[in-house]
């Protein structure tokens, strides 16, 4: 499982692996927002938490279809399925690899983009914390969506339709943490809920993803 994780990370970092594209997308979305809503700093700082969360979510979505599709095309996915490692483990490793290559960089880049949007200074630690805690859920849900649509041509668009509604709870609690942090209010409840969703996703969704993969490999 560790070996699979390392292999996936290597593939992602290598040229053409798409690493960095998600980050660039994140940057561009955040830069576009002031053009859309106006440059008034008071407005921007008010909507900054939501914008950063939505943009991070879209950036994570962008690279989801690569989770299984490449391995499916070159035939290594059926090989993985017959290896001694259970498919649940494969799904988990793929999700973790996706998180390390997109969720983690997004988390680290978010504070820089927060500066662009004039976010309240009190919100930065909570932005980091909520993204660090929430993005693994995004990766695991995304791996499930990718597993459902792996065999389909033009599966990417369909996957967005399937995955985005599943992102709602994560987004709500994640953005709520940052918003409350920006206003200096207690953030305990949404942070705990966000953590609960993430751990639930990491623990349970690999089983669903593996079930979907088995059907698609039949």
């Amino acid at each position, binding site marked *: 499982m560790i070996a699979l994780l390392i292999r996936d990370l290597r593939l992602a970092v290598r040229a053409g692996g798409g690493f960095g594209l998600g980050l660039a997308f994140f940057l561009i979305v955040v830069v576009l927002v002031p053009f859309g809503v106006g440059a008034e700093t008071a407005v921007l700082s008010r909507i900054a938490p939501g914008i950063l969360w939505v943009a991070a979510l879209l950036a994570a979505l962008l690279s989801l279809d690569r989770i299984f599709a490449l391995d499916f095309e070159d035939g290594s996915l059926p090989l993985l399925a017959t290896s001694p490692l259970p498919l649940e483990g494969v799904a988990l490793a793929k999700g973790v690899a996706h998180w390390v290559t997109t969720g983690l960089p997004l988390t680290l880049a978010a504070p820089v983009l927060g500066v662009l949007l004039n976010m309240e200074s009190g919100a930065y630690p909570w932005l980091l914390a909520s993204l660090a805690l929430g993005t693994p859920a995004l990766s695991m849900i995304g791996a499930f969506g990718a597993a*459902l649509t792996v065999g389909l041509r033009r599966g990417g668009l369909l996957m967005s339709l399937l995955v*985005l*509604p599943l992102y709602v*709870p994560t987004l*709500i609690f994640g953005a*709520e943490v940052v918003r409350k942090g920006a206003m200096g209010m207690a953030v305990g409840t949404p942070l705990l809920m966000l953590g609960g*969703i993430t751990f639930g996703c990491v623990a349970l969704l690999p089983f669903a993803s593996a079930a979907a993969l088995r*059907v698609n490999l*039949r």
Partner: protein
Amino acid sequence: MSIWEYANPKKFMDTTAPAVPWLFWGSVALLVVGLVWGFFLTPNAENFQSTVKIIYLHVPAALMAINAWFMMLVTSIIWLVRRHHVSALAAKAAAPIGLVMTVIALVTGAIWGQPMWGTWWAWDPRLTSFLILFLFYLGYLALWEAISDPDTAADLTSVLCIVGSVFAVLSRYAVNFWNQGLHQGASLSLDKEENVSDVYYIPLLVCMAAFVLLFVALVLMRTGTEIRLRRIRALEARAERGAAGA
């Protein structure tokens, strides 16, 4: 005699096909009674005036929108556990009906909200939850459409339905937390003291019964359609094999 006998497509068709017209016309009759009663024979409510009449469509549609998803969840689990084709096809048959019910609930709610709350749409927990439910229906139907092999499609949509149900419940609580709403509390409950007065309650019950019957009739009919489609496909595949072998 067990309920699983109806998992045999032939038995299912023989039993349900004669029942569908009865269910359907029964539901139409109940709907006419409920709506005429509600529309012509109930007084306008003091605070809502005539808009109270929208409740006879709004509440039953919302009820069926949720119960249709619940039925899809149950039939999906039955399909995954016992591999009865009828079960998977029933889930597929129910989804478009649930989608229409969700739209009716949203539209009548918006029409009611405009004069009452002064806005067509508010990001109120119940409204938002229904919008999310609408998206779930869309995704579920899109997945059915996208996959050509019927068994693969049944498996994948069943998995999606189960995961989606968990997230739908999660979203409901998340949305509640996120924004306290305008929507009145549940106007119906088993605790009779809080209920709307009987004048509105009885025709509303009639309408709810009509919607339930309509849903059952439509699901049975659409499941029958799906079973026949499957049979056509099987016969054609056999004919092709026969032609190839000759």
